C-alpha cells in the first residue's frame, strides 16, 4: 500500500524540478562519466561554494532517477573507498531536455526584466 501511494506521488510531481534537484542534475551533466555522490558534493563545493550533505545529494539523485532524468550503473571496483564500487549517474535525454527547457524558460523570463542600471 505504502509503495503504491509513493509511486503515485512520484508520477504526480514529474513535471517539476526543485532548485536543488536542478543543481544536482546540472552537476551530473558537468561531471559526465564520473558523476557519483561524493564527486557531486565536491563539485558543488568548488563551483558554487555551497557545502551540501552527502545524504541529501544521494536522496536527490534517486529522486531524479525515479523521475527519469538520470540513470545509474555500478562502476568498476577500485582500491580506494574500501573496494566498494561507485554508483555512476548519467543524464538521460529527458534530463537533458528538462535542463534545456528550464534554461530557456529562465532566459525568457530574464529578458522580461527591464534593463537594470548599475552604479
Amino acid at each position: 500500500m505504502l509503495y503504491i501511494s509513493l509511486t503515485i506521488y512520484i508520477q504526480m510531481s514529474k513535471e517539476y524540478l526543485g532548485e536543488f534537484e536542478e543543481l544536482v542534475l546540472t552537476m551530473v551533466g558537468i561531471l559526465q562519466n564520473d558523476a557519483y555522490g561524493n564527486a557531486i558534493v565536491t563539485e558543488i563545493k568548488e563551483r558554487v561554494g555551497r557545502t551540501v550533505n552527502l545524504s541529501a545529494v544521494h536522496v536527490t539523485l534517486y529522486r531524479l532517477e525515479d523521475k527519469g532524468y538520470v540513470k545509474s550503473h555500478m562502476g568498476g571496483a577500485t582500491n580506494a573507498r574500501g573496494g566498494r564500487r561507485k554508483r555512476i549517474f548519467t543524464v538521460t535525454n529527458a534530463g537533458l531536455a528538462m535542463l534545456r527547457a528550464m534554461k530557456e524558460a529562465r532566459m525568457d523570463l530574464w529578458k522580461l526584466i527591464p534593463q537594470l542600471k548599475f552604479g
Partner: protein
Amino acid sequence: MMIHHPQKNNLALRFLSWFCPPALYEGIEGDLLEQYDQDAHEIGTKAARRRLVLNVLRFFRPGILLRNRFSLQLINSVMIGNYFKVASRNILRRKLYSFINASGLSIGIAFCVLIYLFIQDEKSFDQFHASKERLYMMHGFEYNSKASGPEDQFHKIAPMQMALPQVMKSELPEVEYATHFAGNSGLMKYDDKVFRENVTYVDADFFRMFSFRLINGNAEKLFVTNDEVVLTDAIARKYFGDKDPMGELVMIGERTLKVTGIIESPPANSSLDFQILTPIQGSRGYNQHNLNSWLNMGWSALVQLHPGTDLANLETKLDKLAEKYMGEHLQQWKQERKVPDGIMPYTFRFTNLADIHFDKSLGGRRVSDRKYSWILGGVAVLILLIACINYITLALTTSARRRMEVGVRKVAGAYKRQLVYQFSVESVLLAFISMVIGIGLTVLFLPAFNSFTGKGITLDLMEIPSLAVACLGIALLVGLLAGSYPAFFLSGYRPVDVLKGGFTTRLQAGFTKPLVVLQFAFSAFLIISSVTMYRQMEYVSTKDLGYDQHQLVVIRTNAMRGEDSLKIGERLQHRAMLNPAVVSVSATNFPFAGGDGMIYNIMNNRDGKSVSGYVVDANFIKTMNMKLALGRDFDINNAADGINTIIVNEALVKELKWNDPLQERLKFSHSDTLGSRIIGVVRDFHFNSLLSDVGPAFLSIDTHYGRLDHILVKIAPDNIPETLARLQKDYTMVAPGKPFEYSFLDENVAQQYGKFNRWMSIMGLATVFAILISCLGLFGLAGINAVNRTKEIGIRKVLGADLGAIFVMLNKQFVWLSVIAFLIAAPLSWYAMDQWLSSFHFRIEMGWPLFVTGMVIGLFIALLSVSYHGIKAALINPAETLKYE
C-alpha cells in the same frame, strides 16, 4: 599513507546496512568510506570517525528508508481456508481441552473487560459538564496541628458557611456563578402520594453551571421566587405518572412549592446526586443567624470561574476574604492551636469538580480512590498473563498427540513457517471463541459487578464498537502470545524422528512450576481470607447484642415539628396493642443501628466524657428484652420517673468508676442542676455496630431529651405480612396522609455491615475465579508430567506397580507444590485478615482451625484437578507406550 578503514563490523555501517535498501547500499557505503578517507587526511581519524557516524545518521531519512520495498510475507491465501478448517476440526476433536482452554481464557478476558469498564467509569466521573475546567468545589483548608508529616498538614473540609457563595460572587470578579449544594430528607406530598425524599437546596446559578439537561422549564427564569421546585424525571413520574407536572403544587415538609422545571436524573458517574431541587433561600437554615455566622459550616459550595482565571491570585484573594470575615476567630485559633507564623489556621480553597471523585474529604457518597484503579488494572494484567501461560502448558500437554501430524505434514512438504501459522491460527481461533464467551460472561456478571462495586455501569450501544475493538485486540494478543510458544515448539519436530516411532520427548516446561505455586498461593490466600471473612460475618450476625433485635418493627411517626408527635405515637401504640399478633409496643427517639444517637457531655469526670442518650418509654426495656443488672425499670405509674431519672449502662458505671451507681447522679454540662437520678443499671447493649466497643449510654423517659418519633413493635414470628398490613392500617388511621415507613431492626443492624458483606462477596467471587484458574494451571502441569513419564509408567506397570501406586507417584509432587504455596500464603493472609478484622472491635480469633480449613479445601481442589491425568496415565496399557522398543 596507509589508511585504516573502519572495520567491517563498524556499528555505524552495520546500522546503515540494517535500514538501507540493499540495492543502494554499496554505492552509499562507498561514498561514505571515501568521505571518511578524505576526512582522515584532513582532520585525523578520530574526528573522521565521528563524522562518519554523523553522516550515516543523516542517511536515516525517509528519502532512503522509504526506498525499502515493503512486502509483507502474507500467508499463502490458498492455505488460509485450510488452516481454519484444520483448526476447527482440532478444536472440536479435543472437546475437553478446548473447553478448559476457552473457559480459562474467557474468564481472563471477562475479568479484564469488567476491570476496563470499571476504570473507564472511574475516569469518566464528572467529565460531562461543558465547563468542567472552570467548575470548582469550595472547601475549608484547616491547619492540622497534630500533623505527622507534610501530607496531612492541612485538612479539607467540605461543608462551608451559608454566606460564602454570595460573598464570593459579589466580592471576587473571577467568580462567574456560585451555588450552594446541601441536602436533607423530607416528606414530599402530592395528592394522596407521600414519600420521604432527599431534597437538595441550590441557587439559581446551579442551572447555568452544570450540564444536567433541563427537560422542561427555562434555565434563565428558574428560582426567581423561593417557592419553586425542580424535579428529576424519575421523581416526576413517581408522583405525576403521565400527567404534566409543570405548574403543579407539591408539599415538601410544611411548605407548598410550585414545579417549574423537570431535569434529567444525574448519571451514575456524577458526584453531585440529587432528586429534588429547591432554592436554598427557602430553606429553614437560610436565616440571618446562619448568614452572619462564619463558624457555622454545613453547606457545600460550588463556583464557576471566568475563563483564564489566575488561580494563584484567586488563592491570595480567598485568604484576604477569610481574614475579612473570620479575622477574630483566626487570631484566636492561631493562639489556641499554636499555628506557626505565616500560616492561616483556616482559609478557603477550591478543588476542580473533576477531581473530587478521588478526594476522600470532598467526594461525598460516591467517592473513590485512584489506587483501586491501579490495583485492579494490575490484577487484570496478572490474570490475563496467567491465563496465557496456562494455555501454553495445556497446549504442550497435547503436543505428543500431534507429533505424528507434524511429521506427516512436513514430509508432505509443509514449511516450518506454515506449521507455525497453522498452530497460531488454532490458538487465535480459540482466543476468538473465548472472547465471545468472555463478552457474554461480562454481560452476565455486570449486574453483580455493579452491586459489588456500587456502580451503575451500563453497556451502552454506543460503546459496543469500541469495546469490541478492544476485545478483538485482547483476543489477538492473547492468541498470538499464548499460541506462539507451542507453535514454535511443535513445528520444530524432525519428521524422521517422529515417523520412525519410538521417539519420546521431554517437555521443557520448568517455567510453569513456580507459576503454579504462585497461582496456588494466590488461591490459598483468597480461600483463607474468604473463610475468615465468612466466619467473622457469621459471628457478627449471631452475636448477642444485649437486646433482641428480631421481629421488631420500627415505624416512623413522621410527625411534624409543630404537631405533637407524642399523640400519633400514643394513638398508634394503643391501636397496635389491640392486635393479638403484637407482643409489645414501645417508642424511642432513635432506634439502634441508626447512628450515635444524641451525645451529651457530662461533668462527672475531668476530661469531659460524652455519653449517648436515648429517650424511650416505660415499655422499652421489656420490649427490647434487655436485662437489668441493678436497680429497677421505669415505672409508668411513678410520675417522678419522668423527670431527671435515668437508667445507665454498665459501660458508664465502669467509665465513672462508681461503686454504688444507684446513689450517684449523672451531671450534664448543659445544666447546672444536681444531675439525674439513677434508678437502674442495664447490661451493656450494642447500640452501635460491633465495629466499636460499647460506649457509655443512658436511657430516660423524660421527653425533654428528645421526641419519641419511632415506634417499636415486637410482633409474633408467624404471619408477619398480615401483621404488617394491620399495622399500616392502624398507622393511616392515626396519621392520615402520611407515608407508612417501617423497617425491621434486625435488617437495620445487618445493614451496618453492608461494606464488609460487599467485601466478602468480592473476595468470594475472586476466590472462585482464582481457584478455577489455578486448577487450570495444575491440570496443565499434571498433564505435562504424565506425558513426560509415560514410558516410566509403562515400565513400572510391567514390573507390577498397581494403579494406586502410580497415582500416588504422579501426584506426590503436587501435594508438595500446594504445601509450599500454602506456606507462602498463610502469613500473607494472616496479615491481610488481621488488618481487615482490626476494624471490628468484636472479632473472631484467627486460630489454626481457619488455616487448616483453608489448606484442606485447597489440597482437595488440587488433587481433584490433577487426578484426571493421574488416573488416565495409570490406566494406559503399557503395551501402548512400550511397543516400539
